[in-house]
C-alpha cells in the first residue's frame, strides 16, 4: 500500500510539473479529419483546403460578400470575346524557398495543374488552352471557349502558386514538403497527428501576420474536439455540432463564428437510372408531391435547433444568384396527395432512400421519412457507408439519395456537373435540353445580370422537374477561444489566418 501511495504521489508530481514556457505564440487548430496530400495540384479534400489557407496563397481570394478580391494577383481583365484573360501579378512576392513569384512561376504553376499526372485541377481549368507570359509580372490565359467561372476557380486550389524549383525537384512527392507563397511555411507533418507551420518572414503581407506558429491537429470526434477547446488544448475548432452550439455560446471563454455555407444538403432523385422504374422516377408530379410533403423549416428546427438555413435551390437564399422568383414554399400535404392522384399513383408509394452514415444525415432522413409518410410515401431508409453509397449512386442502385455538396463560389460549380445531361455527378440520370442550354449559356455570359437571367430559366426547369430536392444549407460553425482576436468567418468555411492575434 505504501508503494502504491508513493507511486501515485510521484506520478502526480511528475504530471503537474509545468511544461517549458514558450515565448512564441502558437495557434492550435482542431480539424475534423486528417487531410490528404498537401499538394494543391493533387489535393481533393475540403479539410485540406482549410490547411492550404495558411500556407498557400492563391491568385485571387473572396471576401465575406463573395466578391473576388486580389491576393497574389493584382487584377484581371477578360477580352471582349471572352477568350483571353490577362492577369497582373503582385510584385515582390517570394515563395518559402526564396524564389520569386513572377510570370514564369505563375505559368509553371498553372501548367502543372493542367498537365501533371494525377492532377485534380484539370477539370477545373479545362477551359484553359495555354498560358502565355506577357511581361515579367503579367500572364495571359488563352481559353478554348469563354468560361465565366474561371476567375472563381482561381480563388481556390487551381489558383495556388507553387515554387517551380521545389516542385521540379520533388515531383509527385511535393505534397510531403510543400513550398508555396503563403503567410506560413511548412515545418513538419506526422500523419494523423499534426501539421506544423511557422511564420514566413518574407511574406508579401507580413505586417499583418501576428502569430508565430500554427499547428493543425486532426481530432475526429466532435465532442472530443470541443473538450480540447474547453480545456485549453486547442484555440480554434472547425465543424462544431449544431447540437453543441448552446454549449459554446454559454461558455464565456469561447466564441462562435458562423456563416451560411456555399453548398447545399439535398436528396438526389433517380430519374434516368432507376431500373425498377418506380413512380418517383417516372413522374415529375410524384417528385413534386414528395417535395410538397417536406416542411424544411421544421426539419431545421427539429434536427438543428433552427440554426441552419432552409433552402430550395443550389445556392442559399442570401447568395447573389438565388432566384427570388422561386421562393421557398411551405408544406402542403393536401396538394401532395392530389398530385399523387393526378399522376395515377396509388399510395403508399414505396421509395428506397439511401443515406450515407452520419448522425445528422440519419436524423434528417428520419424526419423526411415521417413527413413524406403523411402524403402517402413509404420511404425505407437504407443507411450506407459513404464509399459504398457513391458506388451505388453511380450504378443507379437507389431511388432517392441524400447527398451533400460543399459548394463553390460560382453558381456553375453547384449546378453544372449535377444537372447537365451525362455530367459526371448527374447521379439522377436526368436529361433536359433546355436545362443543358442554360447551363452552357451560363458559362459563356460574363455579365452578372445576364447570367442571373439565364439561371432563372434553369431554376424554373429544375424546380419543376426535380432531379434534386434542395433542403437546407448548413451553417459553418467555428468555435474559438476569446483570446483569439480578429477572426472572421468566410462563407467557404476556410480559416484565414492573416490578421489574427492571440492574446
Amino acid at each position, binding site marked *: 500500500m505504501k508503494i502504491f501511495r508513493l507511486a501515485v504521489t510521484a506520478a502526480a508530481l*511528475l*504530471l*503537474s*510539473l509545468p*511544461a517549458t514556457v514558450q515565448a512564441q505564440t502558437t495557434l492550435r487548430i482542431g480539424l475534423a479529419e*486528417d487531410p*490528404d*496530400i498537401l499538394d494543391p495540384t*493533387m489535393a*481533393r*479534400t*475540403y479539410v485540406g483546403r482549410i490547411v492550404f489557407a495558411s500556407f498557400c496563397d492563391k491568385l485571387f481570394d473572396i471576401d465575406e460578400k463573395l466578391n473576388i478580391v486580389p491576393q497574389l494577383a493584382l487584377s484581371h481583365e477578360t477580352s471582349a470575346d471572352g477568350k483571353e484573360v490577362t492577369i497582373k501579378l503582385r510584385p515582390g512576392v517570394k515563395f518559402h524557398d526564396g524564389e520569386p513569384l513572377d510570370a514564369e512561376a505563375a505559368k509553371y504553376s498553372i501548367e502543372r495543374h493542367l498537365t501533371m*499526372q*494525377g*492532377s*485534380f485541377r*484539370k*477539370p*477545373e481549368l479545362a477551359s484553359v488552352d495555354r498560358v502565355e507570359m506577357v511581361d515579367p509580372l503579367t500572364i495571359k490565359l488563352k481559353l478554348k471557349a469563354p468560361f465565366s467561372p474561371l476567375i472563381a476557380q482561381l480563388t481556390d486550389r487551381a489558383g495556388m502558386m507553387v515554387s517551380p524549383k521545389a516542385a521540379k525537384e520533388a515531383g*509527385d*512527392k511535393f*505534397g*510531403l514538403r510543400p513550398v508555396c507563397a503563403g503567410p506560413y511555411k511548412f515545418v513538419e507533418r*506526422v*500523419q*494523423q*497527428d*499534426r501539421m506544423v507551420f511557422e511564420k514566413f518572414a518574407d511574406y508579401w503581407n507580413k505586417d499583418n501576420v501576428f502569430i508565430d506558429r500554427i499547428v493543425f*491537429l*486532426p*481530432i*475526429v*470526434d466532435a*465532442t*472530443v474536439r470541443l*473538450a*480540447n477547446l*474547453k*480545456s*485549453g*488544448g486547442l484555440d480554434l475548432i472547425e465543424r462544431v455540432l449544431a447540437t453543441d452550439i448552446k454549449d459554446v455560446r454559454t461558455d464565456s471563454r469561447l466564441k462562435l463564428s458562423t456563416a451560411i455555407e456555399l453548398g447545399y444538403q439535398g436528396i438526389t432523385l433517380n430519374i434516368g437510372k432507376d431500373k425498377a422504374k418506380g413512380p418517383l422516377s417516372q413522374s415529375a408530379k410524384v417528385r413534386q408531391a414528395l417535395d410538397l410533403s417536406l416542411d424544411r423549416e421544421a426539419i431545421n428546427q427539429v434536427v438543428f435547433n433552427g440554426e441552419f438555413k432552409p433552402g430550395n435551390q443550389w445556392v442559399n437564399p442570401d447568395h447573389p444568384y438565388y432566384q427570388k422568383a422561386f421562393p421557398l414554399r411551405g408544406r402542403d400535404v393536401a396538394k401532395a396527395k392530389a398530385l399523387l392522384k393526378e399522376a395515377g399513383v396509388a399510395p403508399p408509394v414505396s421509395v428506397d432512400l439511401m443515406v450515407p452514415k452520419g448522425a445528422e444525415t440519419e436524423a434528417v432522413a428520419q424526419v423526411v421519412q415521417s413527413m413524406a409518410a403523411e402524403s402517402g410515401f413509404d420511404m425505407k431508409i437504407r443507411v450506407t*457507408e*459513404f*464509399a*459504398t453509397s*457513391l*458506388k*451505388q449512386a*453511380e450504378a443507379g442502385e437507389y431511388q432517392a439519395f441524400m447527398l451533400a*455538396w*460543399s459548394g463553390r463560389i460560382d453558381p456553375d460549380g453547384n449546378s453544372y*456537373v449535377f444537372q447537365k445531361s451525362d455530367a*459526371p*455527378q448527374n447521379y439522377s440520370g436526368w436529361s433536359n435540353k433546355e436545362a443543358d442550354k442554360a447551363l452552357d449559356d451560363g458559362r459563356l455570359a460574363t455579365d452578372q445580370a445576364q447570367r442571373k437571367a439565364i439561371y432563372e430559366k434553369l431554376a424554373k426547369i429544375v424546380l419543376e422537374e426535380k432531379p434534386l430536392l434542395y433542403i437546407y444549407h448548413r451553417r459553418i460553425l467555428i468555435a474559438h477561444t476569446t483570446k483569439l482576436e480578429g477572426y472572421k468567418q468566410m462563407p467557404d468555411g476556410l480559416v484565414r489566418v492573416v490578421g489574427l492575434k492571440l492574446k
Partner: protein
Amino acid sequence: MLNFLARRIVQLIPTLFFVSILIFSLQQLLPGDPALVMAGEERDPDVIAQIREQYRLDQPVPVQYVYWVKGVLSGDFGESIRNKVPVRELIAQKLPVTMQLASMAIVIAFLIGIPAGIISAVKKGTAWDYGANFFALWGISTPNFWLGIMLIFLFSIQLGWLPASGYVPLTENWRASIASTIMPAFVLGNAIAAILMRHTRSAMLQVLESDYVRTARAKGLLERSVILKHAMRNALTPVITLGALELGTLLSGAVLTEQIFSIPGFGKLIVDAVFNRDYAVVQGVVLTTATIYITLNLIADIAYVLVNPRLRA
C-alpha cells in the same frame, strides 16, 4: 531446441502467406471503389480513370496481388493512395505509439487486476469480494468510448490536469508523453484488468484449496507468506498467459480508444485506411499485425518449452 525453433519458423511462412491472401481477397469484398473515393468531391471521370491506371486497379486481382507480394518481399509495402507516404514509413511512425500505449495498458491491467483478484479470492464472500466482483463487472461492461469521454470531462475539462487528447512522443518529452497516454492506457487497461481479476480469483480459489497450501498453513506459516509465496506463484501462470494474449490484441491497435483520444496509432491508421479504401495501407498494417501476433505466439511457445521439457518432442 534448435530443431524445434527451426521447425516453428518454417511453419511461419505458409501462415503468413495464407494471411496475405486472406487480407487481399477480403478487401476485394469491400463494397465501394477506391478510385471513386480518391477522386474527391468532383469525381471527374478522367481523373478516376487515371487513378485506376496509376494504382493498377484496372488489372485483375491476382495480378495486383503478385505486384504487391513482389514489393513486400523486397521490403516495399507500396504507398498510401491518399497521401503518397510509403506504407513502411507510416507503420514505422505508428508502431511505437501503439506499443507504448499497449505496454502502459497492460501494466495498468496487471497492477489493478491481480491484487483485486487475490484479495477477492482470499476474502471470499466478504464485502471485499463483492466489491472486486462489482468492479470486474463494471470494467467488462463499460464501453471504452464512454469511459474515455468521462475521463476527458473529469481530468481535462473540470480539473485541467491532463491534456484532453493528442500525443507527444516519448523521445520528445517523456513526461508530456505519459500525460498524453495515461487516460487511454487506463481505459484499455481497465477492461483487461477486469478479465485478469476474474481469472486470478478463480485460479487462486483453486490453489488455496490444494493440499500443499493446507500443508503450508499447517506448518504454521504466516498467512501472508502462504498466499504470496506459495499460492500466488502457481495461480498466476495461466493469468500471465492471458495477459500476453491481451497484449497481442492491444498491439493490433485500439480503434475506438485511439479515435477518442486522437492517439495516432495503428487503430486510427487502419480505420482511416478502410474508410478511404486505401488498400496498400490496410494490407501493410494487417500483415504487420499478423506477424507480431504470430511472433508473440512463438515466444509463448518457446517459453512453455523452456518451462516444460516434455513439450520438446
